[in-house]
């Protein structure tokens, strides 16, 4: 025993931790936008697309949902170069995160689209809106409102999973923690502090999404 905790290194480490946290926030921001967009396309395609597209989307969703994110990341970063697709770590991380998140949110968005009553589409068409306008202006906002809590949870899960991309040397929060503990030899303290930073990030992100969602989608978003 005789081990005593030492946080003396923390003063010099705040810069690195802040940089790492900023990168984690950047990753999740890009992934959220790209993933949500992709899943809206995917969910719409799965409902109204040609049969082949429906099948392809179904297969994609099942493959991603039944394999670990870490393996997907390694496959994209280490595996794809052997068929000629070479990505730098940051791009590989964003691609892996987006593809992973979209597989989960396609189902969520799809459930939201199903929840909008058919009469909404019919009424909008009767008013002379074109099909695309009906989808973008009438159906989608109502669907997003229904699924907003589920979407928020998925975004936070993805933010926590992003810790894994440190393994391909993306300089986010976990990567900075690895570097710090190698320098300070204070592994437990370092990971403890960084874990708390993640906790604050996930709680802050939830607050932000809920209040932002209320403003964008109107009342009733919880």
């Amino acid at each position: 025993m005789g081990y005593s905790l030492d946080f003396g290194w923390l003063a010099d480490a705040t810069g690195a931790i802040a940089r790492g946290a900023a990168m984690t926030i950047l990753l999740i921001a890009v992934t959220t936008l790209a993933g949500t967009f992709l899943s809206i396309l995917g969910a719409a395609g799965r409902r109204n697309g040609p049969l082949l597209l429906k099948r392809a989307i179904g297969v994609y969703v099942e493959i991603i949902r039944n394999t670990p994110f870490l393996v997907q990341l390694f496959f994209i970063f280490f595996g794809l170069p052997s068929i000629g697709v070479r990505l730098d770590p940051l791009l590989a991380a964003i691609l892996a995160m987006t593809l992973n998140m979209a597989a989960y949110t396609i189902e969520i968005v799809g459930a939201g689209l199903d929840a909008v009553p058919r009469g909404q589409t019919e009424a909008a068409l009767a008013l002379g809106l074109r099909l695309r306008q009906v989808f973008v202006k009438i159906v989608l906002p109502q669907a997003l409102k229904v699924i907003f809590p589920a979407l928020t949870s998925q975004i936070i899960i993805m933010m926590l999973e992003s810790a894994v991309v440190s393994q391909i040397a993306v300089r986010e929060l976990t990567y900075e923690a690895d570097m710090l503990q190698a320098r300070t030899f204070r592994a437990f303290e370092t990971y403890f502090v960084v874990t708390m930073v993640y906790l604050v990030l996930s709680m802050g992100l939830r607050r932000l999404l809920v209040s932002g969602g209320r403003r964008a989608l109107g009342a009733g978003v919880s």
Partner: protein
Amino acid sequence: MIEFTFWDIVRNLLLAARWTVLLSLAAFVGGGVVGMLVLFFRIAKNKWARRLASGYIALFQGTPLLMQLFLMFFGLPMLGLRIEPWTAAALGLTFFASAYLAEIWRGGVDALPRGQWDAGASLGLHYLQELRLIILPQAFSITRAPTVGFLVQLIKSTALTSIIGFEELVRTSNAINNATFEPFTVYGLVALIFFVMCFPLTQYARSLERRATSN
């Protein structure tokens, strides 16, 4: 230099997959036991017990599993415990699973009508008997689908233990990849093995869910 044929790769990966299965089972059983304990606190009559359990769940659901594993791996030796990757992995995943399972099962308990408790009390059962005979059997039965769904998540989560040095499927695949330089094949096969383990469970969870909604 050792030459690896395709079948050597497959054989080695399948041998390593045994550890993935074993770790998943250990964490699921361990997580179930600890999760029950957390559940008792979470639905207790005492306000502080409930808060404690909520905090525990929020902590594990609000931080990355990778960080939890690192804290196990580096933290337990400070308590004087000799720790190996297997112990850290099994304990880390057990606590992780306990938080999620407790929260799933609490959803089941909350979904039961208040009258179930009242009926139990009017039959003269005391608290623990009510839980054991009336509440928990029903709560488990309506949460079977999400529980199986979480098992899938747990199996996938074992991949992270490769990072703290536990020799499961992913860590073995890294070693094989370093020897063969065939990442496309190796990681493709790893994904396939995980898929074969998880997909039947996913389908099972789905059929449970369908059965639950049709009732």
